[in-house]
């Protein structure tokens, strides 16, 4: 088959990119390894009658223009931003509510303003045509990116300097580091503040799978062909330029442009035979740091846990966050061990979205950070998985005494499971370490500027691109814009 554009991966980025290209009349195909589209955006029944989104409850914000262009609400994706966030310690708690004017709110505004500016800056870069013939972006813009000064700040400095209230600072750190591993005292860790939880992100009614359904509907209406259950085995090159995609079943699709929504390592190390790429490129890809830290535990509860103010349970519940706790957990994580005190964020997802649990029951998820993908002392055995479940339960007991007795089933998902299920290298859901030298214009590398790559006709969307870890679908939109700019298609405005 002959296509204008082929897209690897039917997650938010891939589906958004495909829709925009197809609407411009480009013949577009999306190739998905899994049985159904969605990737990270999925919701499944993990115990009879109990449903949850296994890999994340909440995603980074969908840029408003994309939301509007794809008409996601009409297609069934209803976003419900969490009305509040709760941090609970042994003797006290801290509530963050979206509406109140406070130093916290103004700091969050500042952060989300920076995020908006970063998205705008990345768009400007993607839309600049490289004149069809790809030049390797030698014209380096010396204008610093929005947020670049953050490389000099630690997350602790960013939050603690702005907030006199230590609990509020620790609470915001928990929002930023949910499911991650980082030392918040080190310069450059401020970039974690761009995390999903610390802006206008949201939960989708019915689970993240609903968003995938809406995106699929938009793509199909635009005429995109979505082919599931098919692994792309190789990208075909002709004279150093992308010529098409070979699939594992032996078939080949010709395509002038390929957008990969896989992470950087998967894109270059699994889609090309090694000898096809320059050694220097392989080395650059190898030097990109990726390591997962997220584990999830899904709990089916026979009845909702008791809590004095249930209205506070509609958002995330961070258990005893403290800067020193994140730093210590990060150290253990680096050495491949499970920290004594893992950072845990709970969510009683059925509280805001009752449809996820059967009548009278409840669904609670735990997101654990600083969980190593590989343990120093062997595999993730049943016993090791049980440690994660027990840590999550111990944390839950602090918030909901007696909750253990209500658990009817628990499902543990390790970083390794995420690697296998999502194709995220080492289970890194953010497509590469969040560090000053791997963010903004340096993500995944400075030259050529993303979403373009050293291979002509190959574009990188997905988590390893500049917007990957901070906005949902935006990287796909940018890649589509770059393809349109390079192919002289007038983009939608």
């Amino acid at each position: 088959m002959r296509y204008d554009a082929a897209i690897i991966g039917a997650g938010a980025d891939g589906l958004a990119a495909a829709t925009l290209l197809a609407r411009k009349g480009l013949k577009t195909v999306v190739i998905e390894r899994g049985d159904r589209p969605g990737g990270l955006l999925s919701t499944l029944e993990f115990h009879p009658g109990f449903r949850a989104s296994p890999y994340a409850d909440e995603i980074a914000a969908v840029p408003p223009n994309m939301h509007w262009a794809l008409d996601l609400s009409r297609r069934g994706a209803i976003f419900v931003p969490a009305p509040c966030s709760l941090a609970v310690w042994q003797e006290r708690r801290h509530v963050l509510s979206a509406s109140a004017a406070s130093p916290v709110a103004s700091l969050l505004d500042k952060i989300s303003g920076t995020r908006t500016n970063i998205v705008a800056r990345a768009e400007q870069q993607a839309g600049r045509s490289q004149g069809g013939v790809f030049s390797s972006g030698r014209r380096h813009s010396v204008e610093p990116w929005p947020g670049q000064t953050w490389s000099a700040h630690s997350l602790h400095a960013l939050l603690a300097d702005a907030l006199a209230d230590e609990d509020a600072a620790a609470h915001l750190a928990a929002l930023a580091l949910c499911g991650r591993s980082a030392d918040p005292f080190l310069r450059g860790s401020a970039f974690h503040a761009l995390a999903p939880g610390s802006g206008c992100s949201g939960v989708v009614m019915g689970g993240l799978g609903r968003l995938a359904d809406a995106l699929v509907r938009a793509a199909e209406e635009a005429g995109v062909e979505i082919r599931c259950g098919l692994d792309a085995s190789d990208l075909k090159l002709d004279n150093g330029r992308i010529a098409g995609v070979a699939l594992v079943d032996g078939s080949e699709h010709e395509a002038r442009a390929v957008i990969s929504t896989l992470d950087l390592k998967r894109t270059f190390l699994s889609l090309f035979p090694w000898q096809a790429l320059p050694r220097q490129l392989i080395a650059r890809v190898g030097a990109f740091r990726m390591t997962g830290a997220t584990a999830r535990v899904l709990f089916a509860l026979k009845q909702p846990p008791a809590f004095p103010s249930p209205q506070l349970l509609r958002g995330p519940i961070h258990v005893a966050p403290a800067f020193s706790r994140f730093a210590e957990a990060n150290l253990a994580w680096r050495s491949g061990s499970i920290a004594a005190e893992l950072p845990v964020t709970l969510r009683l997802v059925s509280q805001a979205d009752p449809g996820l649990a059967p009548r009278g029951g409840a669904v609670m998820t735990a997101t654990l950070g600083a969980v190593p993908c590989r343990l120093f002392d062997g595999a993730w055995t049943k016993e090791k998985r049980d440690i994660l479940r027990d840590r999550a339960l111990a944390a839950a007991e602090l918030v909901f005494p007696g909750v253990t007795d209500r658990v009817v089933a628990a499902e543990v998902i390790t970083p390794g499971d995420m690697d296998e299920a999502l194709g995220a290298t080492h289970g890194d859901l953010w497509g590469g370490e969040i560090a000053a030298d791997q963010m903004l214009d340096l993500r995944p590398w400075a030259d050529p500027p993303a979403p373009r790559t050293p291979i002509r006709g190959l574009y990188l969307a997905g988590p390893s691109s500049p917007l990957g870890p901070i906005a949902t679908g935006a990287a796909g939109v940018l890649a589509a814009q770059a393809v349109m700019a390079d192919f002289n298609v007038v983009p939608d405005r």
Partner: protein
Amino acid sequence: MTSANSYDALVIGGGVNGLAAAAYLARGGKHTLLVEARETPGGLCDTTDLGHGHLVPSVAHALYALDPRVTSELRLTGHGLKFALRNATIALLQDGGGQLVLSHDIRAGARSIAACSKADAEAWPRYSNELFTLGRSMRALWWDLGGKSVRNRLVDQIARTGTGAWLDSWFESDALKTLVAFDASALSPLEAGSALLLVWRAAQEMCGLQGAVAFPAGGPAALSMALVKACETAAVELRMNARVAELAIDGNRVTGVRLHSGDVVMAPLVLSSLSRRTTLLELAGGAGLGLGERHKIADASPVAAAKIVLALDKLPDADGIAGKLNGRLILADRPESYVLAHADARAGRIPDDLVMEVTFPTVTDRALAPQGGHAASVVVRPVPREIAGGWEASRAVFAAKALSRLNGRIPGLVKHVVAIDVLTPDVLSSRYGAEPDTPAVSRMLSDWPARMRTAIDGLYLCGADADVAPAASGRSGRIAALLAISATGSR
């Protein structure tokens, strides 16, 4: 100015930078007074007698890129400065006695590296070349007074890169990465921009005509003595035992200082070689600083260095180790050691992976010890600045831990120790007024005037804090003096 207590310029602190600043001010025609709180000048560049004629460097044990212009312009050689060792090598003490040695001789370095990794030996000249190129591009900013800020793409990138990631992108051998990372170990290898410290070291190698890392003959005090002579020749008045209590400020101008003795000294120009924090907060009382700035300066780094000096009756000689005890010897297990040590130190614990730099000054300078005897000087960094229960209670534990690690790599060392002094951060601070001097990446990328000028007219910083990265180099003293002279000259 006629009053006896009235000068054109006053310098606070008689360390290397203070002395250099005073000498330059006087040579520029300023009637200059230098006040030093201690009995003797020299500050951290001092020599201590551990007993029986074992002379050891009190704090600093090597000179990092003493500014060659200071040496020549102040005629330090004429004032008695000689070097026992120039271009000191840096070597990693490995388990099992293997040794990786690097020096300014790139080919010799590559030969030594080849024993660890062939690929790294090939990469070494390219790496050195890249660092030199980067260092050269920073030249205007780091070595010249009126340097313009650099917007070089690679510098911009490296200023956001940690040492760990930077070295990983070049080398495969853990030993080489561990050794090279030492020169940037003032910051955790995970800190964004710590790799810039490696560029700074390369720039020193390039510009230090006297050898990048050198040991003065007679110990560090010899440099201080030469500078004192230069000051005397230039007619600087030196006043010891004179601790400054506060700065006298009129409106937004400094007018002099008040000493602890109650004396007031008038001077329209004051150059302080004390830290930014002490100068601006304690002596100037935070004058002219916004709340945010005051807050920023007040945060002292939780990570510091400690010093251990040892007098030895002879050198340990097991397995021919005696022949390897020259230059700088680095004791660190693996690249990750720096990460762990920084995290431990910041959390207020004595690190398990202690990182140490050892020198045996007596190996190159026999005059520093009695017949047959030797001395060792050990810098341990990072250690916590403050520790639960106080350093007083933890000093013995710390010393035992450090000595046992030293003895592990230099077998037999401990049994030759005849005297020891352990200077934990509290001692360094009470004895020498030393404060933790953590480099700041943003300051490395700003120009000299930005680092030296203060919100108060006439007040300049001229100490290690104003240097690109903290060091006893004389560089910031020289440049602060020139800056101050040119500012008054144009008025």
